């Protein structure tokens, strides 16, 4: 079921790349249209899956990845339509396509762990996924900023210079994405703690719930992520870490998230493996 959005995303990715190289406006519009259809198909898929399990579309990692991709696509579309800058697509789409492969290859199992049937849990996961989508955008914006910064600072105005947006736009967008992401990350973590405490009271013998502590790699990763972005926000306000430094921090933050979200989730963590 996740295949159709994947195909549309891949097609959009190709169109964004051609648009980036040749800068034909029609190709740019085609790319956006394909991505819009991809997001629409994806909305439908997620809607169907929610109906199927009645409550929660985010309880398995594959479904969570799929929801994350969907949120990232919507956030990116929002960014593109508000700034009228398409150049970012060429950086975001590879992330979207690569991650969407996961739910296609490992279709998520239907989740029936009753522990997860809680509104708190739903808020926890959705907030974190939205935060991650914002951070993904911030990371791509940061990467783009560094490329553009290098061209201008080194006075070599080449291929990228003409194609990438201005430093100011990239910096402001990065700041917004980090702020939104940080807010949702905070909400997600706090709600997660509250929910774990509640759930532990209800079913004290659940091994997952017992494993929830700062020793758990996944939880530790989330705390590190929170610390990195909190520092990024603090440094911008007080130390004047704008521009390249802010860009660098948001790229680092997203690298940690990706690591935490995928390999840690599949192989290492003991606390977030509800069956």
């Amino acid at each position, binding site marked *: 079921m996740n295949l159709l959005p994947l195909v549309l995303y891949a097609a959009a990715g190709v169109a964004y790349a051609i648009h980036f190289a040749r800068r034909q406006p029609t190709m740019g519009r085609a790319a956006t249209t394909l991505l819009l259809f991809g997001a629409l198909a994806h909305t439908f898929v997620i809607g169907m899956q929610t109906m199927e399990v009645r409550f929660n579309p985010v309880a398995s990692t594959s479904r969570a990845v799929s929801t994350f991709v969907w949120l990232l696509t919507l956030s990116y579309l929002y960014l593109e339509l508000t700034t009228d800058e398409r150049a970012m697509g060429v950086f975001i789409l590879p992330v979207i396509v690569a991650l969407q492969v996961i739910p296609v290859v490992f279709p998520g199992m239907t989740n029936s762990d009753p522990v997860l049937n809680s509104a708190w849990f739903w808020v926890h996961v959705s907030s974190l996924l939205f935060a991650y989508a914002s951070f993904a955008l911030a990371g791509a914006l940061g990467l783009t900023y560094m490329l553009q910064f290098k061209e201008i600072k080194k006075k070599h*105005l080449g291929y990228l210079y*003409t194609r990438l*947006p*201005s430093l100011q736009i990239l910096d402001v967008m990065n700041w917004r994405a980090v702020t939104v992401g940080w807010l949702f990350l905070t909400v997600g973590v706090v709600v997660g703690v509250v929910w774990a405490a509640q759930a532990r009271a209800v079913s004290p013998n659940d091994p997952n719930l017992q494993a929830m502590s700062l020793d758990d790699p996944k939880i530790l990763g989330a705390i590190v992520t929170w610390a990195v972005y909190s520092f990024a926000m603090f440094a911008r306000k007080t130390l004047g870490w704008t521009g390249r430094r802010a860009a660098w921090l948001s790229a680092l933050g997203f690298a940690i998230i990706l690591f935490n979200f995928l390999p840690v989730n599949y192989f290492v963590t003991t606390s977030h493996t509800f069956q």
Partner: protein
Amino acid sequence: MHLFLLGVSHKTAPVDLRERLDFSSGDLGAAVEMLAAKPAAAESIVLSTCNRSEIYLASDDAARAREDAIEFISGFHQLPHDAFVPHIFTFEDSAVAQHLFRVAAGLDSLVVGEPQVLGQVKDAFQAASQRHCTGPLLTKLFHWSFAVGKRVRTETALGEGAVSISFAAVALARKIFGRLQGRRVLVIGSGEISTLTAQHLRSHGVGDIAITSRTAANAQALADAVGGRAVPWTERMTALASADIVLTATGAQRPILTRDQVDRVRKRGNPLFIIDVAVPRDVEPSVGDIEQVFLYNVDDLQSVIEENMSRRAAEIARAETIVADEVARFTAWQRSRAAVPTIVALRQRFDAVRRSELNRLDGKLTGLPPEARARVDEVTRLIVEKLLIEPTEQLKALPDEETQVAYTEALNRLFRLREEESRVEDEESAERARRE
């Protein structure tokens, strides 16, 4: 109907002659009206830019068109023929299309790829069209040229990259700050480049422009010219603290802006773009090492321009390919248009045969009910239509004029179209006369 073009440009005429032949300063509409009154000018447009004056005509007689165009220029500008005739160039038919498409694409401009010329081509068409001096052929040609100009602009990088110091500086500022609205500019020292650059920045909507100079009068003069405010030389560091863009152009022999000074007054994190056009340089090179400071001196900007120039040059071939492609398509359209009288005559001939046969059978058909008679009429009409579809398409798509003449001739003989054609033309001209 043929296309004809006569003109002078920066490639054929010296600047003083071009100035005397300029139409843009006066009333372009009056000029094109005067041109349209000439007998050979069925359709006329006058295109005038800083580097060219060109007369576009659609006419049945190219030789007469040339004479008329020369007469018109001589009459309008009060110049003897021999003052300008040695400098003119002329084109006919597809060469006219090629020339106009190259002009609209910016390929024929002094600075290749400059964007203003397309607007001027549009203005020329507008002026002629408002005074009803254009017709189907020139209208098609000019609309086609707008599309070519747009295509070259979007599909190639011909017009990209600034090719003057002040444009390059503004382009860079836009890549750093995005929109320049509300940005604060500080100009230190006055000179031609700083004046031009300040004017460009102003036209991009920057907010405050502060100008300082060791000679207060110079600062005031520049401030008046660009709508800025003069700041005493002693307060330049205060102005630097809040500036986004700094332009330095003093005649000082030692740097007037050092790294220490900049570090001291700047709030960290705010980007600062410094354009140093002074020689010797006004700004210590190490200022460029500060994290959010972008320092460009005159050599840096010069190399940006050279890079842009060579990139534009690399795009010329692609633009020429687009032009050639569009000229071929335009010529094909024009040829298909030339086939129209033959096609019309052929259709009328076939229809005449059909009608005479139906008339001949009228006696036998009267016995039929009205629906059946209508059916017979319909069927015969469809047969004629179907027989003619393929020949019509083929005639419109003939590859060159020679083949077209041969085919037209053959059809004329095979179907005795000559009488038919002249009748059609008579009717058309009567129609035109009636409308006028």
